[in-house]
């Protein structure tokens, strides 16, 4: 079987989705690109079902918060083609105030808990998710703790001020 290169996959995606596939990069050999929420599921479905790329496996879903950016919440998908032994990283930037992303549970059932975790920690609302509840934190928490505005510890504690520890 011929080796499939990152360039070949980008060419495939470019042909299909045009300028919806943006900022292509290869940090440490891992193909990374951005896309938009409206075509996200189509991109995932296309990569999964395309016989050349064959990204049959959803490795991970998570998010990253960049408070200084306009669209400050990046939802990151890692896909893996076990046949071709290549990975791809897909990012979608959404507004941190109203983070709405379509669910990937329609493509992989395994996305269910990964999306629940991302919702729990970042507040990303996955539209169409069958059971979008908190998963690791308590239901009464009220905030999404991995967002950068929430400090690691309660700032009102007097016994653990950073200055006492030279930080």
């Amino acid at each position, binding site marked *: 079987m011929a080796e499939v290169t990152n360039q070949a996959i980008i060419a495939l995606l470019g042909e299909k989705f045009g300028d919806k596939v943006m900022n292509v990069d290869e*940090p*440490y050999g*891992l193909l*990374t690109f951005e896309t938009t929420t409206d075509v996200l599921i189509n991109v995932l479905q296309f990569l999964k079902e395309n016989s050349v790329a064959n990204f*049959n*496996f*959803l*490795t*991970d879903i*998570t998010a*990253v*918060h960049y408070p200084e950016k306009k669209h400050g919440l990046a939802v*990151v998908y*890692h896909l893996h083609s*076990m046949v071709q*032994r290549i*990975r791809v*990283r897909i990012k979608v930037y959404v507004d941190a105030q109203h983070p709405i992303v379509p669910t990937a549970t329609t493509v*992989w*059932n*395994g*996305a*269910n*808990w*990964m999306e629940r*975790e991302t919702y729990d*920690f970042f507040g990303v609302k996955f539209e169409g998710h069958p*059971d*979008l*509840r*908190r*998963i*690791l*934190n*308590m*239901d009464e928490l009220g905030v999404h*703790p*991995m967002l950068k505005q929430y400090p*690691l510890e309660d700032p009102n504690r007097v016994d653990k001020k950073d200055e006492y520890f030279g930080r």
Partner: protein
Amino acid sequence: MSHNQPIYTDNDPQSELVTLNLGPTHPATHGVFQNVLQLDGERIVSGVSTIGYIHRAFEKIAEHRPFYQITPLTDRLNYCSSPINNMGWHMTVEKLLNIQMPKRVDYLRVIIMELARISDHIICNTIIGQDTGATTTFLYLFQFREHIYEIYEEICGARLTTNVGRIGGFERNFNDIAFAKINKFLKEFPVALREFENLLNRNRIFIDRTAGVACVTPEQALDYSWTGPLLRATGVDYDVRVSEPYSSYDEFDFEVPVGTRGDIYDRFLVRNEEMWQSVRLIEQALEKLKKEPAGIFHADVPEFYLPAKEEVYNNMEALIYHFKIVMGEIDAPKAEVYHAVEGGNGELGFYLINDGGRTPYRLHFRRPSFINYQMFAPMSKGMLLSDAIINMSSMNIIAGELDA
């Protein structure tokens, strides 16, 4: 309580279903797992898993710690095979920093990672035996976990949460006692493992309890993002050590065992065979070590590798580097890196985003237990309660990794 909360209790007087709270602390589940099950007699009609009882916010803590202080956090993910997590994290940072390890360090890492894999599989397989009623096998093989912990003790001083190795190598060389203990282990363990297999592999009671129970097809397993022995038991030969070799695994000769039906018996056999392969790997690594210069146990990267204490007190450069590393002021490239290792339960991934600061901007752990466990409640439907218990044992869910 939100509107989409599952209904735990069934107050309908006409209903014959019984609600059973299995967990959070149930002696049969070996860890903090809560499953609220609806039972019709002994059959499970539906189940809801509740997790997060030992969530410790590692990803948040990691955003406030320099790289070398994150190693102890990884210990506490899958605490049955801490060295694999430690090494996975070191390799992630080394990949970010573009550090090449000397061959000897790679081989030492293979030894300790394979020991960890054996100890992880010992725990899982003996507990499957225990849960099917074979206490002898549990006690018999479990002592070798103790021997592995004694080897850890020689190498790093700790037993369970090892914190072994440093970014750029190991903190100290393996001593002669460690090698003697490894050799002793390699001599004694195969005998015990053979006997363990003789007790269970063709045991009628064991086969009746496990074969054909909780069958999973490869399609289902891939759909639910399963990895590790669970995925291999269904017949998919995916192993990170082979598909993306790290730590010189490509130089070793070993096999990836696969099952055919994906039932509990297959998972048991796959793990057993992996222990044999791990023994082979350790033997090969010891053989390769003989050809390497004996004194090397870390890469020559003083700006990233914590210097020895004697050096720090007597040598100006070492003091400077020590200070820079401890204060988290190393020059790491601003980049994103994903690195995966084959953990005891599957693909353990580290997604690290560095923005040039003292701490990671974001660190995400791809925890195999968390992702494997989500299929437990759906697949329990229609299963007998006692089968669901051994199904959970055979999935080898480690609470620390599940909840991070």
